[in-house]
């Protein structure tokens, strides 16, 4: 299918690349179909999640293990079943990134990551229920630390 997006212009999306989010995302419950878009730098660890229903709606995703190597979560059965996965091994965990004006202050939502089953093309935003998982976890070093190393 062809999709008009505000960031990428016209995207041609093969059906098999469409990710279904049966419950949408929190606050975006009607957005049920997305596609993962490479940002053109496959090693960056960042992806776009572009809505198929709304060309203006897109999110930045990141693999949390790249900056939080100890990040662990227990996915409950209901969440795994919703993406057709029998265990967490069959799913990929990605976090939504909030990017402010100063992109160095970007944060990832580790409290409510996305559980994605690449084989079934299904995804769900889950809430880990772990109080140590932050809604706003810094992705990069604190700017003052970064400045000190320059």
């Amino acid at each position, binding site marked *: 299918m062809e999709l008009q997006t505000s960031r990428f212009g016209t995207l041609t999306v093969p059906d098999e690349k469409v990710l279904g989010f049966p419950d949408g995302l929190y606050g975006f419950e009607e957005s049920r179909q997305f596609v993962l878009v490479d940002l053109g730098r496959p090693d960056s*660890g960042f992806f776009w999640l572009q809505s198929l229903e709304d060309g203006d709606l897109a999110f930045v995703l990141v693999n949390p293990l790249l900056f939080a190597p100890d990040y662990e979560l227990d996915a409950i059965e209901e969440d795994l079943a919703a993406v057709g996965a029998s265990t967490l091994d069959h799913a990929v965990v990605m976090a939504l990134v909030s990017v402010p004006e100063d992109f160095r202050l970007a944060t990832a939502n580790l409290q409510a990551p996305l559980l994605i089953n690449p084989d079934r093309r299904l995804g769900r935003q889950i809430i880990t229920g772990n109080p140590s998982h932050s809604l706003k976890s810094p992705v990069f070093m604190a700017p003052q630390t970064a400045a000190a190393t320059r």
Partner: protein
Amino acid sequence: MLVLTRGLDQSILIGDGIEIKIVAIKGTGDGAAVRLGIEAPRNVRVLRKEVLDEVARENRTAQAPASAETLEALLAQAPWAKEGENKPK
């Protein structure tokens, strides 16, 4: 919604293995709060309801910036990407 009145140390049982107990009652009037003790199987998620609203709010904040320059800068900043460029996949 099922509405029950419970006093201190009284419990409600939900389904299989879920128990909610009034552990303490503090204060009066608008400032009153009830301390709840919750027993639930590991497989059942227990959350303060506000968490869902907080997540929705954070999702709205996370809608991607429209600027390609900001995104490019974000990608360039990733320390793992800089290391990864020279490593075989």
